[in-house]
């Protein structure tokens, strides 16, 4: 009799343990994504000012990023603090660049490029085909408690991210872009986060300013005859056109690829006079790879491992 009771007890205990473990596991998986979704939302909804140190190889740039809402429209302002003046203003879906020795110009964009990867503020589900979301530990950054979320690449074709999110607002306080061997390529470190309760004067001022008209690319009327026999999981064609490269005036067919975080540019042109290197990589992870396919040269550029670029370049086929 007592042995039966014991068995029942053991079973109940076992079930209780399982019940405790599985929801915990399930919850972890949900909440890593939920954290990222909160971040994406916070980047759009919150009003804040962050002072940031951006590291790319040995290159350090301090910058200030201010975001808020004016007349129900998102307004953001970015300024690099060192070197020649360089800044950008976003009002709704228009980003204007104000730079040293250059007439300001505007483009249609949902984010100011160069601070946080655009994918951080986009649809997080889009990233799931290429990355696994894993919750990490907690630590203190910019004087605030933060939660680590890892974006682990599901294959070797892209780099991984670690993002630390402010526990209170879910705004990013730091991110690292790393190779598979944990070599740091790029880091963004918030040194101060100010959560604002109303849009600061500079954003109200920026909203009032008249910015240059948006420049727009003419739609390519020529159908591209190029396709890819292979692309890494999650990568899709974003756009394509034909244009000339600055500097050498070369005419290229251009195809943009993205997995939501990593962006790759593919250029197809006639074979050049001088051979390009098979693989070239800058210290911040931006790589270039060139392949001669038939009588054309395919050049792929992007912040992914050069092996990925080479394989994509080799996968270009005529439809």
């Amino acid at each position, binding site marked *: 009799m007592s042995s039966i009771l014991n068995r029942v007890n053991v079973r109940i205990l076992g079930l209780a343990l399982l019940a405790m473990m599985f929801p915990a596991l399930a919850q972890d998986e949900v909440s890593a994504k939920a954290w990222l979704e909160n971040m994406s939302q916070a980047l759009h909804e919150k009003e804040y000012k962050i002072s940031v140190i951006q590291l790319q*190889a*040995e290159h350090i740039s301090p910058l200030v990023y201010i975001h808020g809402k004016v007349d129900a429209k998102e307004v953001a302002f970015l*300024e690099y603090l060192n070197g*020649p*003046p*360089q800044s950008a203003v976003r009002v709704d879906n228009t980003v204007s*660049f*104000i*730079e*040293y*020795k*250059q*007439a*300001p*110009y505007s*483009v*249609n*964009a949902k984010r100011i*490029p160069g601070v946080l990867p655009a994918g951080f503020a986009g*649809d997080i589900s*889009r990233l799931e085909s290429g990355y696994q979301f894993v919750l990490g530990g907690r630590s203190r950054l910019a004087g605030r408690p933060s939660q680590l979320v890892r974006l682990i690449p599901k294959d070797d074709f892209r780099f991984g991210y670690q993002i630390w999110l402010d526990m209170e607002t879910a705004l990013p306080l730091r991110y690292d872009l790393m190779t598979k061997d944990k070599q740091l390529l790029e880091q963004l470190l918030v040194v101060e986060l100010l959560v604002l309760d109303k849009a600061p*004067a500079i954003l109200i001022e*920026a909203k009032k300013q008249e910015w*240059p008209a*948006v*420049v*727009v*690319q*003419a*739609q390519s*009327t*020529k159908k591209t005859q190029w396709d890819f026999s292979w*692309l890494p999981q999650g990568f*899709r*064609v974003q*756009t394509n056109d034909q*244009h000339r*490269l*600055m500097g*050498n*005036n*070369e005419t290229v067919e*251009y*195809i943009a690829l993205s997995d*939501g975080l990593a*962006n790759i*540019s593919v250029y197809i042109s006639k074979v050049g*006079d*001088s051979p*390009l*290197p*098979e*693989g*070239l*990589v*800058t*210290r*911040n992870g*931006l790589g270039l790879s060139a392949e001669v396919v038939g009588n054309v040269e395919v*050049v792929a550029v992007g912040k992914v491992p050069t092996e990925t670029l080479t394989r994509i370049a080799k996968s270009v086929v005529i439809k």
Partner: protein
Amino acid sequence: MDKLGQEWVSAAVDGEVDNNTLAELANDIDSHEKWRDYQIIGDAMRNELPSVLNIDLSMSIAEAIAQEPCHHMADVKTEQIDRNVSAANQSSKQQSKVVPLFKQFGQYAIAASVALVVVVSVDNYNQSNTVDTSPLSVLNTRPLVGSVSPVSLQTGSMQQSSASASKNDQVADQRLRINAYIQDHQLQQRLNSDMNIDDNSQTEAIQSQ
């Protein structure tokens, strides 16, 4: 629009934006010129100069770009009768205030300040066709804006060239091409950040005209 410069920005950041200072600062064109010099002097004093300093190269490229008259925004406005405009306007139905800057096969006029990587030196090319044993060779690069960011080059089977003169030409041309591609990629990050990344079709985008 030229007056809409960095000064407004830095003053505004400090909360000092008022019309008088704005006008005053915007007129001070000389200080723009000094910026670069001060930066380089500062770099030199802090011993942060690259081993090969090639300011003239990056400047001359930027200036050549800036002086391309037919690609300036102001001039493009006069080309609105261009056949491509109709296509451009179609693509942006909701935008009434649009400057058609890029013609098909057009050249981007706005990229001068997109981090221009000027590859200054390429060395350690393979001298033979044997397996590449040389370590990653390091290129000195100097972006137009900002400081130096070195680049390492994995030399694959680089073609041999017996005449050193033609090799130098080739190397110079190669550098130019590498820069052109990297710079264009950076520019595309600005121009195409608006693209619909939720598009489910992988090949549809290519096929559409």
